[in-house]
């Protein structure tokens, strides 16, 4: 299959279109089948992926507007491969676990379109194609929050849309300017990201461009102080919306940093280490504290998700292989763990129509399976060794220690503060006496719910014990990225800061 990537991206969309003619009763089965096939396609992609090759693979390139250098240009490397796998997996799992019954058919069609846009973002190697998918992804999410959300859904969805949209417009300006620079330097137009990589820009240009891209990505991540759309989005979104939002949409921002900012503006990236680290530390500590103050379980998870994104951001700017690989790995881990936690909260919400901790207590006695899976995800979320959460968090902190020990200690408080708010949720929800009448009759997880969670539990443990199959290819591509950045950097500070692993240096 030469154009596996195109098939992967557009299969969900085509299936989504066909979904309009599918009978309402069988919509769910249809959706699950389609996402299952997509997931299998992405698995196939992984198996045919050459792990020894750190560059772009499965490349497809069709010129669209040759005069402007815009082409339909796709490819994956070790970094995007696993984000793609996580996207298809979380869409599938989210679909299986979905409890929505209202307008189920529309929901499934919306989700399939959303899947297309997300996959598109992660395979695009042309800035315009990237931008198209990036912006298109807002629309299905706008619908999901706006049509299936809670009482404040209109406010939340508009806030989500306008906020992220504003950011991406500034990013678009940045992209146009890069293309303009490319044209003025080479005489031809190109929007191909790999062409752009070859541009060596003066530091002041790099800084301005870095800033433009930063706004677009930072709002998506979301970095402090651009994070306030997220509590509303999560608070109002239906479970499936939160799962996809936390697991995949946020990763677009961090992925953007890896795909654009680091390789294109290495000097500016090095100069931005301290400001970004400071913002990330605020994310880690400040949002962890806010998470502790929440009364609603879902809000705790929402804020904790921001807090963990802080760790990911920190790793991206560690400028060494340990930190960067850890950061990319943490994107996957965060996607799976926070996705699972949102699913779990959704399940309890469906039973009790409330997410307030004060309404629960002692649930472990009536819902033991639920409590066990929540416990495992909690442990993964606080970064317990042998769960998926540890590998990334450890590597990020280890990597950033080389940059700044002091900041690493501050970021390391994440392991303390994280357990503080998560254990509080555990205690007030699952432990203590079962004293509310409504809770005494709660049913434990049913088969559908259990089976949507079991794969995630399995992955959490598998990749915690043996992360190599995933971490290996990531590390490979990260090493290539670092070598590239090191060679491309023009200032001495940047060259000193960017650390190519010794093993890679020796191999050369």
């Amino acid at each position: 299959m030469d154009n596996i990537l195109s098939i992967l991206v557009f299969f969900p969309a085509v299936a989504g279109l066909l979904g309009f003619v599918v009978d309402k009763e069988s919509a769910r089965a249809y959706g699950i089948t389609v996402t299952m096939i997509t997931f299998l396609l992405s698995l196939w992609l992984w198996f045919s992926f050459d792990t020894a090759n750190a560059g772009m693979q499965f490349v497809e390139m069709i010129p669209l507007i040759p005069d402007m250098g815009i082409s339909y240009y796709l490819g994956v490397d070790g970094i995007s491969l696993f984000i793609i796998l996580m996207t298809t997996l979380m869409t599938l799992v989210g679909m299986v676990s979905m409890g929505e019954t209202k307008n189920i058919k529309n929901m499934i069609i919306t989700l399939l379109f959303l899947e297309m846009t997300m996959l598109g973002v992660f395979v695009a190697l042309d800035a315009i194609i990237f931008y198209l998918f990036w912006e298109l992804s807002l629309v299905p999410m706008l619908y999901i929050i706006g049509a299936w959300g809670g009482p404040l859904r209109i406010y939340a969805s508009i806030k989500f849309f306008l906020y992220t949209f504003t950011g991406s417009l500034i990013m678009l300006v940045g992209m146009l300017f890069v293309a303009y620079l490319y044209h003025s330097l080479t005489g031809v137009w190109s929007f191909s990201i790999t062409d752009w990589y070859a541009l060596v820009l003066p530091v002041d240009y790099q800084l301005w461009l870095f800033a433009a891209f930063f706004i677009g990505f930072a709002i998506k991540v979301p970095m402090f102080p651009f994070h306030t759309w997220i509590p509303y989005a999560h608070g109002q979104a239906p479970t499936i919306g939160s799962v996809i939002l936390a697991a995949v949409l946020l990763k677009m921002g961090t992925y953007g940093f890896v795909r654009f900012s680091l390789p294109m503006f290495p000097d500016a990236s090095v100069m931005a280490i301290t400001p970004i680290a400071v913002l990330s530390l605020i994310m880690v500590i400040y949002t962890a504290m806010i998470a502790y103050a929440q009364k609603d379980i879902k809000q705790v998870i929402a804020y904790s998700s921001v807090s963990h994104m802080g760790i990911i951001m920190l790793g991206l700017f560690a400028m060494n292989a340990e930190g960067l690989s850890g950061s990319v790995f943490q994107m996957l881990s965060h996607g799976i763990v926070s996705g699972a936690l949102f699913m779990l909260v959704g399940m309890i919400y469906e039973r009790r129509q409330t997410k307030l901790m004060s309404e629960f207590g002692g649930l472990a006695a009536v819902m033991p399976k639920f409590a066990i899976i929540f416990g495992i995800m909690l442990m993964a979320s606080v970064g317990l060794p042998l769960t998926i959460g540890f590998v990334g968090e450890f590597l990020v902190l280890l990597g950033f220690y080389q940059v700044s020990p002091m900041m690493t200690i501050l970021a390391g408080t994440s392991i303390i503060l994280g357990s503080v708010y998560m254990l509080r949720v555990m205690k007030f929800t699952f432990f203590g006496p079962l004293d509310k009448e409504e809770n005494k009759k709660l049913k434990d997880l049913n088969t559908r719910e259990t089976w949507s969670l079991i794969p995630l539990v399995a992955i959490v443990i598998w990749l915690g014990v043996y992360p190599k199959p995933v971490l290996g290819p990531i590390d490979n591509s990260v090493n290539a990225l670092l070598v590239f950045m090191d060679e491309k950097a023009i200032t001495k500070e940047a060259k000193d800061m960017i650390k190519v692993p010794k093993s890679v240096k020796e191999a050369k």
Partner: protein
Amino acid sequence: MENLVYIALFAPFVGSLFAALFGMSERKIFVGIIGSALIGLSFLASAILAYNLYTTGTVVQVRMMDWISAGDLNVGFGFVIDQISVTMMTVVTLVSTIVHIYAIGYMDHDKSFNRFFSYLSAFVFSMMILVMSDNFLGLFIGWEGVGVCSWLLVGFWYHKPDQKREDNPSISPSWAANEAFIMNRIADLGMLIGIFILYWNTGSLQYDVVFAQLPYLSDSVLMWAAIALFIGAMGKSAQFPLHTWLTDAMEGPTPVSALIHAATMVTAGVFLVIRANPLYSMEAVAGVSFFIASLGTFVAFYAASMALVERDLKRIIAYSTLSQLGYMFAAAGLGAYWIALFHLAAHAFFKALLFLGGGNVMHAMHDELDLFKMGGLRKKMRGTWIYMTIASIALAGLPFFAGFYSKDAIIETAFNEGTYVLWGILVLTAGMTAFYSFRQVFLSFHGEERYKALGFDPHEMYKFVLVAMSPLAILAMITGLFMNQYKAFIYKIGESVQYEMSDHTHHLAVWLILLVVFIALSGIALAYFKYARTGEHAFKPDEKTANGFFYKLLINQYYVPVFYENFITKPYMMISEMLWTKVDLKIVDATVDNIARFFYNTGDKTRRMETGNLSNYLNWMALGAVILLVVAAISAMLV
């Protein structure tokens, strides 16, 4: 040999999974039996490994598989069986086997019997990873693993509600479990930082590679690595100021307290310092080592002082554990690593015995823990009484019992090093230890039978449980006799663990020992006169003592928990609330909304220009033209 290593390590894991299969069904006795048998198997394998190491002296090192590789980092699951780890393995699996068998009897009425065994075996597995790993990150897996198991087991009776601190100083099992986990996490951050320091300076995390690099590292690196790792040790081994969780952890079932919070997990910190002895014996970290010894000595005294007035049976034993951990750190800090390890092993035996005996009493008294409600129990519980007396004698350090050799060696070390202040405190603490241990024995087993008035009907524990406890009783008596053989065994590791008393100390040794024994005996005698007698001299709690300043200070644990609550927990909650409602919603988010509102309003206002009236439009056009002209004129003038 390799197979034995894996059997020792994975037998408990299999046991845990097996029990987990029945985790949600009701009590099945064979879950307990198979679980115990598997731990026994692990003990057997450890013992063979120990014997093999003793006879051949060859250290076994195996690497199972890769774990994390990124950049230059490459850590795997590797295990090393040397004198230090094999000591720990044997002690851990032996005590675990006995505790497992004990728990079959102790937990027999609990509906979560199977779940309990699953957790307990999982704990043993984590502990084995901790002691067997050949690298710091593997140790960290076990380190966090035992933390989680401790969290699960302390909070085992999760359904109990929170109580006020005045009614129950530990508030509730789930509260105590969270406290333990979070406090340990604070220390774990220190440990992680230590790991980072070692990795970036030596390029590896494997013990032998790291230790070989130590002489080439700068003094400050060594010092910070030692400090950071010790912070980790302070959490697990509950050293001041991270000690409050240990007494609260007594909310867990008693077998858990015996295994985790006395014999094994809490000694992990001491183990870490012993494991990293090449680091701690470096010249550059002498200051840190001395700090460890001083802190240990302080904790020994501090914890013993709180045990003097405590009325809760389990909390007394917990304080005594804390105090003995202090002794171990004192020895390790002074460089007598093998003595610390020997005391660790001896302590594991007699302290587990003491706890299990305490469990028998609780079982008999229907979970009543207040010593003042007991008394004279020896008539009903002969076996338990004998066991607890043996354990207390060993703890008090009376001649020829385990503690006599191991604890006295620590006190002697303090003398030998010329640190007379530490020595003095440790001697004094030995007297206090004897006093509170026997106070506990006398209050529960001797004197008036106070329980009768309260309607208790105590009964002795099952026979098989008492039989299962007997190895611990024997070990509590005889371990000390093997001190010299053990010394010869552990000396093979190398110079860094070797420690000899000077000739001067040797000459004075008899007098030193006599002094300590005399002080211990005085403590016991005092306890006897105060608590053991019957009739008109019988012990009665009196108001006057209970209202005294020192009594209040001690019974409230020097107000440390209250201080933590008022100055850390509550302010943290308050600040968090404030950050959320005041900063995040009112400042950060409101700014975003205001920006949006500004654009909306501007648009809304300017929309009014669109009146559809031509002359209006002309007016605006004219105004615009004027402004443009003015701007053009000004810019022309500036250029």
